[in-house]
């Protein structure tokens, strides 16, 4: 029962985020399931605040050199978990149609600038993985 309530709440939140009530006309975003046990923050917080998290993290990383385990809101880590793969196991760009970032951003009609510069798939070598532990 509790799970159903939570799901209802989440669906409700999607409407708020999307700014639409016509849920039957515009289908909710669909995107590949992420890997990993859990996200760095609860889903509802991530939905509303992810842009604030990453814009804060970018300054910490660029100016203060904070990378690795304490770079909790690293865009690189988002991509590592949320990338979808095709049948051959090839990573699909996270901003490609139907992928994690694009699906919601298209739904909410917000453009993304991140991927003008940032890599859209997990890198071959994730140098900081050695420092990265599962968030608590």
């Amino acid at each position, binding site marked *: 029962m509790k799970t159903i309530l939570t799901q209802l709440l989440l669906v409700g939140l999607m409407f708020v985020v999307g700014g639409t009530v016509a849920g039957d006309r515009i289908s909710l975003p669909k995107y590949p399931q992420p890997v990993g046990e859990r996200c760095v923050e609860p889903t509802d917080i991530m939905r509303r605040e992810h842009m604030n998290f990453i814009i804060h993290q970018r300054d910490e990383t660029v100016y203060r050199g*904070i990378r690795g385990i304490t770079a909790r809101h690293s865009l690189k880590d988002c991509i590592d978990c949320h990338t979808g793969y095709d049948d051959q196991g090839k990573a699909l760009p996270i901003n490609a149609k139907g992928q994690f970032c694009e699906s919601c951003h298209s739904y909410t009609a917000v453009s993304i600038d991140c991927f003008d510069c940032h890599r859209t798939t997990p890198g071959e070598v994730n140098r900081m993985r050695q420092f990265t532990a599962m968030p608590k």
Partner: protein
Amino acid sequence: MEASEKMTGQSRRSFVKRTVAGAAVASIAPGVVLHDVAQASRDPGEAVTNEIRWGMLIDANKCADGCTDCVTACHKENGVHQLGRPATDAQWIRKVHLRDKQTGKEYGVPVMCQHCEHPPCVDVCPTGSSFKRADGIVLVDKHICIGCRYCMMACPYKARSFIHEDVNDQAAHAPRGKGTVESCTFCVHKVDAGEGTTACVEACQHDALIFGDLNDPDSRISRELTKYPSRQLRADLHLNQGVRYRNI
């Protein structure tokens, strides 16, 4: 203001560390000075401080003719793809060839961002995008770079490149995109991971490049610098670069 305090201020942790180290020195017999062990790596999550100043020493005698391993390694490491258009392709590092007109002796050395203590690129940047990190590494914050290229004109070493075309397949640790300026980062992602080296240094088979902490008297680069003379390019500009050259 806040940003500059962040960059130059030392963390409480490093202050405590230094204080403790100072106490240890005091307890040793007079005349015996203990240097703090080289802190080439810091804990992940601890901000960079000015306790370290990264630098490089390049020996022209050891740099082999025709060898461009450092250039190749740099561009591979940082995802700087060459498009076969030399006029506009980005160069984070390049081999500069010199010829002595009197003797005909030819030699070459790699030239990249010299990581000045007083970087002209930072002076001229209208957005604050070009900046020097507390540990002496000069970088571009591409989030706020508007691509005006003042820094490219200000740099005496032609170290910076402008990205003219859309970029794909960047390295995950080195974002780069059209309309921004970029240059050597001293492989900041490797430095921050505690590796204490750069791709060009790792690639050099002739031991012509040495990377290390100029503030640490026991680092290899500091010992080499005190052993034999070295030069900064255009030292008359008083920029106090982190990159030094020998035998040029």
